[in-house]
């Protein structure tokens, strides 16, 4: 579906169902830097068909959403609340991947009454980005897309054996970033690089937290995810073997099932 937020069209995948806020719990899925809501394509329909209002959103300037991309994690979090206001959703579970996990943490802390729990995938309290990668994102998107894909996918997906028949994950990941609007990836990487609040906020987050980490994740290694998990008051962590940073694509059914367990 498409709605207007701040006068710009926002693209949201609902897994083939209309919103039913009164009878179903809601899950908001937030993608990572330079990507869009299609990264959740193997969770959206699965969860929607099991009785969850799924909102796999494209952040402003990403995917099929209009508008300029937002400059900081804080701005992105405010935008998320605006989106929920517009949809008149008062209680939500937020799942965020990478940059999306930082947005989830920020929103969970600042809007305790609205955010029931959070699911963090490919997360860490700090996400420092090498200046050369930011430079590449600004000047040569192809280099940045290749590096991010190389570091994001685990060993298995460097050879292939994609769970989706006929799909080549390396190509898909590179092209997803290549199709992003000029400057969007760089903005997102800068926002991740500059965000230092996760640890502080995590200490005061009362809600239930699930961290899903990929054993072969080079972007946000298991070690860093574990460190963050110990800061939350109420956190479970699951490590997926044979997956890297893009675990929702690398082991889509496992991730979908873990998400489902947060509801029922």
């Amino acid at each position, binding site marked *: 579906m498409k709605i207007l937020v701040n006068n710009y069209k926002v693209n949201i*995948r609902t897994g083939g169902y209309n919103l039913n806020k009164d009878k179903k719990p809601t899950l908001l899925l937030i993608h990572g830097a330079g990507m869009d809501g299609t990264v959740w394509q*193997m969770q959206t329909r699965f969860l929607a*068909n099991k009785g969850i209002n799924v909102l796999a959103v494209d952040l402003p300037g990403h995917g099929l959403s209009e508008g300029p991309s937002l400059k900081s994690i804080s701005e992105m979090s405010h935008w998320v609340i605006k989106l929920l206001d517009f949809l008149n959703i008062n209680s939500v579970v937020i799942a965020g991947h990478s940059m999306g996990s930082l947005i989830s943490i920020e929103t969970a802390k600042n809007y305790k009454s609205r955010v029931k729990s959070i699911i963090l995938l490919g997360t860490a309290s700090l996400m420092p980005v090498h200046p050369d990668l930011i430079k590449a994102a600004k000047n040569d998107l192809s280099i940045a897309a290749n590096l991010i894909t190389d570091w994001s996918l685990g060993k*298995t997906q460097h050879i*292939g054996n994609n769970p989706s028949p006929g799909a*080549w994950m390396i*190509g*898909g990941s590179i092209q997803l970033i290549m199709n992003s609007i000029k400057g969007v990836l760089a903005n997102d990487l800068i926002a991740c690089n500059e965000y230092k609040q996760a640890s502080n906020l995590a200490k005061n987050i009362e809600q239930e937290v699930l961290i899903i980490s990929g054993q072969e994740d080079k972007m946000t290694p298991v070690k860093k995810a574990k460190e963050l998990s110990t800061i939350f008051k109420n956190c479970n962590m699951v490590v997926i073997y044979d997956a890297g940073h893009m675990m929702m694509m690398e082991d889509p059914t496992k991730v979908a099932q873990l998400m489902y367990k947060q509801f029922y």
Partner: protein
Amino acid sequence: MTSSKFYKFNTLSLHAGQEPDPKTGSRAVPIHQTSSYVFNDTDHAASLYNLEQPGYIYSRISNPTVAVLEERMAALEGGVGAIATASGMAAFFLTIATLMDQGSHIVASNSIYGGTHNILSYTLPRFGITTTFVDPENPNNFKDAIQDNTRLIFAETIGNPNINVLDIENISRITKEANLPFMVDSTFTTPYLMQPFKLGADIVMHSLTKFIAGHGIAIGGVVVDSGKFIWSKTDKFPNLTKPYAGYDNIVFEQEFGVNALIMRMRAEGMKDFGACLSPMNAFHILQGLETLPVRMDRHVENAQQVAEYLNNCEEIEWVNYPSLKNNKNYKISQKLLPKGAGAILSFGIKGGKKAGKKFIENTTLSSHLANVGDAKTLVIHPASTTHQQMSEDALKKSGIKENLIRISVGIEDISDIISDLKLAIKASQRE
């Protein structure tokens, strides 16, 4: 800064898409000779049908052996995904039927395989899909033929049988400006010699039967999508940008992003049209694909020597091979095909059609048959075989001369190939 460390071409041609089978340790790709797959439970069945999770339902739609081939081809082309089909023609039709509707128009090169020319000229118009053919030598010819209802530009990387090298870079500038997808048939070049996505193409198709399988034992085709074309930037592709009633009103681009075309082709095209590749053929094609790089090096090396030999023969009127310095496509072939301009060349023997026929009848090692890209050397006379359905006018417009002989140079010892040609040429000149 460090650079990305992906596996390279030779490695991918052997490994992409497959790890040793976790249950048996089988190193070779197992042949999943099965029509269907047992569901875990009713929920699992429902979720597979609803495209909620990946997996296999029925081998017409997808099959694990075929999927290895598809993924490997996508890896070698640098695409997002691929669909293997029963033949190259099935791959072409699958793409057309997915992107087109009644009233759609295609701009196609006139230097293409006779079968493709036939479907565009005679079959598709019956369904309201028309084509304008253009001479591919001048990229602006494609631009001039674009109409309001044009939805696709199509050409072959090396034209069949004229062996003209397509100026993909300049044509892709035109297609991008017109916001139209650009599909190329890369059968003659294979991803080893050219990766059309890097040059600006959006969709690549192959007849896998040829160099990729490489041994003349299995028919197959494939479509690979680059994921580069943004379908919603135009209103010409409702099959990807509007709800599809046949599948729970899915909007393929919204749901699957860069995989939209492949997903629609699988969910609709493979399901409805049914031109699937058998797992056994996929296995045979994979065996060929494993050695593609080494075979292509030998094919190209032999083709160059054959071209040079023919070029120096008094009995030969003309030789068309882009890697020859006197060829009109020499410059562009050096740029786009630095590893060589493939292994198919054409030539005309003095004495016209009669001499051409005699040549064909007097080859011994080279086989007279309707195929290219076999490890063995093949010869044919297109005007009387592969392109015989084309009218005299169409043949003329496509530059197919009566005395044109097409040779697909194999990987035999070069001295044996040349000896065979020498004897056949000599015989062709006898009264």
